[in-house]
């Protein structure tokens, strides 16, 4: 396990250059490629020259981009950087929007795991029957149906017709431990708030998860069948072990590629969130990044990229650690 610890530390160290690289590239594209945004920040056509000049000075816009980048990172990490478009400190906004996206992503992820994996296993066990065929078609739909189309359809059903969901606000209890109501309400056993959170997030999470469910179901089906055809399965039968024990072996073997893809899926959830968040009125990081792009608020956008990159790298690290836990052949 000492090797694992070393591995984790080595990986954590790589976070720093990765974060710098990612934010630098995004900053380059966002800040350098288009025109000087100061005029836009100052009010567009109505921008007053004085205000424009003040903004240029405050945000170092007339200096080379690497200097700009330096000031940006400094201000961002010291939490002094104020977005000229929203007027809030970038970290403040991230802090406000992060819990929404985290909750959405977590619940989506749970859907993917709880629906996708069983569907895949059933599909594998009932191979070539109509059940298998239906599940495979559903999975295909999952990756081909555009998210917004599905969202509108379900909103029409669950909101307009049935009124089961709401499209405004985000449930927030008066207390705060982690800042994420979903987790806080569990910690405090506040089931009422928990129910409210689920009620608000379940449909957007399901919509967001749908393509992922399709991918995971197909993947689980394939890896499960693959593992089912492994050599050692034969010997398990020869040893007279019961079916469930055989499935246990098979599932664990199938898990390795599944864990990888689940990790990638998580990143995909983060990326797919903007549209879902916008349609369902959830003020999350995804939606925030979208509006920052529209308003040329690249400071907020790069801040968002930083956080998302951090989350993504952490998830990948967890995936790699799980790898090592599941498969002893993996060495670092």
């Amino acid at each position, binding site marked *: 396990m000492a090797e694992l610890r070393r591995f984790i530390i080595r990986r954590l160290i790589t976070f720093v250059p990765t974060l710098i690289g990612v934010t630098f590239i995004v900053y380059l594209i966002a800040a350098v490629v288009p025109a000087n945004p100061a005029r836009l920040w100052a009010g567009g056509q109505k921008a007053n020259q004085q205000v424009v000049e003040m903004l240029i000075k405050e945000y170092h816009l007339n200096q080379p981009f690497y200097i700009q980048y330096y000031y940006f990172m400094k201000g961002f990490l010291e939490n002094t950087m104020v977005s000229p478009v929203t007027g809030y400190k970038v970290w403040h906004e991230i802090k406000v929007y992060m819990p929404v996206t985290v909750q959405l992503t977590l619940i989506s992820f749970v859907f993917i795991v709880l629906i996708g994996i069983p569907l895949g296993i059933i599909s594998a066990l009932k191979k070539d029957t109509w059940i298998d065929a239906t599940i495979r078609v559903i999975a295909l739909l999952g990756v081909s149906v555009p998210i917004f189309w599905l969202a509108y359809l379900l909103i029409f059903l669950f909101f307009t017709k049935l009124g089961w969901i709401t499209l405004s606000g985000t449930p927030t209890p008066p207390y705060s431990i982690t800042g994420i109501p979903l987790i806080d309400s569990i910690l405090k056993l506040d089931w009422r708030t928990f129910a409210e959170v689920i009620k608000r997030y379940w449909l957007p999470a399901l919509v967001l998860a749908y393509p992922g469910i399709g991918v995971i179901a197909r993947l689980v089906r394939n890896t499960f069948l693959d593992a089912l055809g492994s*050599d*050692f399965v*034969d*010997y398990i039968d*020869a040893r*007279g*072990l019961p079916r469930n024990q055989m499935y246990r072996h098979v599932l*664990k073997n199938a898990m390795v590629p599944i864990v990888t893809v689940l990790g990638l899926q998580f990143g995909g959830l983060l990326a797919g969130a903007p549209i879902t968040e916008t349609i369902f009125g959830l003020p999350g990081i995804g939606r925030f990044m979208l509006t920052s792009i529209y308003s040329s608020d690249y400071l907020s956008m790069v801040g968002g990229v930083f956080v998302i990159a951090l989350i993504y790298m952490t998830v990948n690290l967890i995936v790699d650690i799980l790898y090592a836990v599941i498969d002893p052949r993996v060495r670092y």
Partner: protein
Amino acid sequence: MRCKDPIIVVKDLYVNFYTYAGVVKAINGVSFEICRGETYCLVGETGCGKSVTSRALTRLIKSPGRIEKGEIYFYPEPGKKIDIMKLSDEEIRKIRGYDIAYIFQDPSASLDPLYTIGYHVAETMAFHGVVQSIKEGIKKAAQVLRLAKMPDPESRVRAFPHELSGGMKQRAVIGMSLANRPKLLIADEPTTALDVTIQAQIMNFLKELKEKENLTLLLITHNMGLVAEMCDTVAVMYAGEIVEEAPVEELFKNPLHPYTRGLMRAVPKHVGKNVTLESIPGTVPNLIFPPPGCRFHPRCPYRFDPCDKKRPPLIEIEKNHKVACWLYAKEGGKR
């Protein structure tokens, strides 16, 4: 009945494989007995049906294969007769790994790379009730491995398959298969994948078991040298049929069936220059459309009129020496 105290009796076993290409008549009416305490060997070329036959004993045949018909009886104790074909899935499961255990050719293919050796041993014991839980099983695993002559068994218990060499893995598999003290051990080419020195160790170990524990062993091999060392009774299979069965010395001294003779001649006896290895001309027949009559007749140098018309029955020519060949059937003899 050859055996006074048989442990396995097989009568007229037929096994087919239903493939896209057609129906493979893999086992074509095989009958034999294994006596308790003996080492019974099935020999033949690759694809002759030895493995399928051994798997059929516990109905370990998977789709697209199917046991078409036949009778298989298992006598866990003298006098107690179990009809294998009539057992439920759950009942046959209990027999596998407990009364009848297997060892296969490639130990890597037998072990799950994600679980430790100890876990493998433990689960084999736990699910047959030999121990109460896997945890307990792991505690006992070192003992089991020691019995299988595994060096440093305590650390091996915690090891994963990829951390062991081939020989160790096979010892682990042997340990697993013996942990529940089976009545019959079926070893399908157990040392083919290992080097000669390890092979010798393992075979000696099995011999020990046979002598000390009175273990009944069904050994499948194509290595005639091993046959000479290990076996009591040998059955030669060709193209899904038993063509000859005899006690081991009798078989070597007096091989009757043309195929057996060919096999004997194919084994190099001397090491020297200018020794040509003899081979049997022709190839193994297509079992979807097997040759009519005797399945060996296309390659048989002694073939004559009845050989392609009717299948020769397996009849006892001399004491416990059976052969299925028209050369001998005419001469009478008991079945």
